[in-house]
């Protein structure tokens, strides 16, 4: 009992010390593993820790609006007018891709080819069978079963769903008008799994299924995946290079706060479903030193974190984009109007 008390006292003491220097953040679950990894390495160098709560993008936006954290994190970028309204500055940190995971008997990994409109047709319930003529026409030499397709989607609101439905809206006018792009949409068919793990478990368990998951998740869980035709008409394999190719051709200044979509970008090797994840900070923070610490952490990660990101199957931002982000930080000022970074 006495030991427990001492331990408790020690823990309280420790957390008191740590909290004084910790950077606080909350939001998206997708970048949580890399933020945690960066934070670990950053703490070793600077002794400044990161307290990041992966409560979801919606929660992150709520928290930063309520000013309870130094930064919020979101997968779906906020629109320009929302940023101005709440006085927020938004910038990307790292990128990732979304891949269609499949479980079809007799189809080898990376052998099945699909197009955006076909995927939209599957998720709208218009393409019902794996041996639909549209799929067969693309896949000479692949034996496709005469079985119903079981589409799997994220049942929780998620940035992954936003990226996936945004892509389908870009390639299918039908999808855009009937379903649209959002963190959760009204699915006409299919079954819902909670989280990336819920979707991948369902795809693994349910025969003849197709789902969409973060690339890192598909790779680590060794899920079979399909190839998708990109804007240039090629079928690139989903990997770091293909995601970076998508980012290379994008015009990041098209939307305020870098809030562009990397979906369906031009480029022979570009993976068609690619997205960045974003951080939000207040432009005029009440506690500038906290935000300053957060920006220093991101700057450190931009300089030293690329290898860690690649290890975890995330894709670092191109150097030019990083410089643009640093430039945007000039908009974050202390009460006197002086840039804090």
């Amino acid at each position, binding site marked *: 009992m006495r030991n427990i008390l001492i331990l408790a006292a020690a823990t309280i003491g420790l957390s008191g010390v740590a909290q004084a220097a910790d950077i606080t953040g909350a939001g998206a679950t997708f970048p949580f593993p890399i933020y945690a990894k960066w934070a670990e390495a950053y703490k070793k160098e600077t002794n400044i820790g990161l307290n990041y709560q992966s409560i979801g993008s919606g929660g992150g936006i709520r928290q930063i609006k309520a000013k309870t954290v130094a930064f919020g994190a979101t997968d779906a970028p906020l629109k320009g007018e929302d940023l101005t309204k709440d006085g927020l500055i938004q910038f990307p940190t790292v990128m990732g891709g979304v891949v269609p995971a499949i479980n079809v008997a007799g189809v080898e990994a990376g052998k099945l080819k699909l197009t955006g409109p076909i995927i939209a047709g599957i998720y709208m319930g218009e393409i019902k069978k794996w041996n639909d003529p549209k799929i067969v026409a693309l896949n000479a030499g692949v034996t496709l079963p005469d079985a119903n397709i079981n589409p799997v989607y994220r049942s929780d609101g998620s940035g992954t769903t936003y990226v996936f439905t945004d892509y389908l809206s870009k390639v299918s006018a039908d999808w855009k008008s009937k379903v649209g792009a959002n963190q959760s949409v009204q699915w006409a068919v299919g079954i819902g799994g*909670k989280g990336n793990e819920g979707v991948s478990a369902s795809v693994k368990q349910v025969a003849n299924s197709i789902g969409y998951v973060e690339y890192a998740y598909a790779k680590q869980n060794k899920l079979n995946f399909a190839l998708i035709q990109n804007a240039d008409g090629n079928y690139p394999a989903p990997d770091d290079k293909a995601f970076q190719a998508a980012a290379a051709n994008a015009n990041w200044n098209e939307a305020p706060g870098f809030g562009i979509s990397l979906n369906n970008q031009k480029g022979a090797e570009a993976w068609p479903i690619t997205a960045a994840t974003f951080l939000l900070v207040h432009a005029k923070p009440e506690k500038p030193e906290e935000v300053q610490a957060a920006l220093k952490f991101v700057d450190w990660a931009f300089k030293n974190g690329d290898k860690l990101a690649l290890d975890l199957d995330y894709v670092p931002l191109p150097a030019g984009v990083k410089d643009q982000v640093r430039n945007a930080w000039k908009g974050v000022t202390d009460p006197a109007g002086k840039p804090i970074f």
Partner: protein
Amino acid sequence: MTAVTDHMTVPGAAPQRKTPKGTFDIVFRNASFLSALFVLVLLAGIMLSMVIGGWPAFREMGIGFITSSVWDTQNDQYGAWPAIVGTLSTAFLALVIGVPLSLGIAVYLTQLAPPWFKQPVSTAIELLAAVPSIIYGMWGLFVFVPLFAAYVQIPLSNIVEGLPIVGTVLYSRSPSGLGILTAGIILAFMIIPFIASITRDMLDQIPSVLRESAYGIGATTWEVVRHVLVPQAGVSIIGAIMLGLGRALGETMAVTFVVGNANRLSASIMDPGSTIASRIANEFNEAMGLQLNALIALGCILFFVTFVVLVIARILVSRVKAY
């Protein structure tokens, strides 16, 4: 030793000790009153915050919040009907499957089982009651669902296809193993330990003289169970079933794993659906604005449904008591 003698021999000691005992009694009485009051305050607090939190959704949608089947986060249109139907139908299926099994277990254990068999089964039931719901969910998704799809859904769909009524209710368009019936079965597994162990305890408490006299006048086992045991323990059995129903209505994690999480209404119990609790679990993290209000309003409805079920249970119990 001397102290004891002192106490026993001094006659004034007893009245003197009465006063401190009385003080303690008052403190004790108030403390237990506060404990009881705490429950009421807590309940009122939860109810109030849910009504306040859910009010914008009720105001925006009106009665449509309950009757509409649209759950559209983009256009901020929310209707709870599929979730309400899913909640009630999974709980109902759980009772249909779970209650007969539970009663069978309880009757067998108390009346028929040999002692060497009774103990292990009783322990197993208590262990089952202690398994966390996420384990049921994971077991359901990884073990039960594929078997259910391969050996029940697919063969059954082939048999019932095209038949009237069963061809709709039991037919699965895409036999994935996930769905309302799967959730009902997993829920049944979860409530069986509760109903079975309470019923077993109740049956054990019935004086054996009643049972023995019934056997003495030549009643069969079935007749003893039907006409002696069930009427004696009826109230408690209904209480146990209602407890199980309460758990089935509110169960979240296990259901979220196996129900299929589709925000759609389907005529077939083989198709995926959703329950109030599963939808809250799915969407709460990322919910903003009116969606958050709608989810809290869903919680409010679940609260109300559970309350109505408890009231019905009370009425049933008092009716049975009256006989």
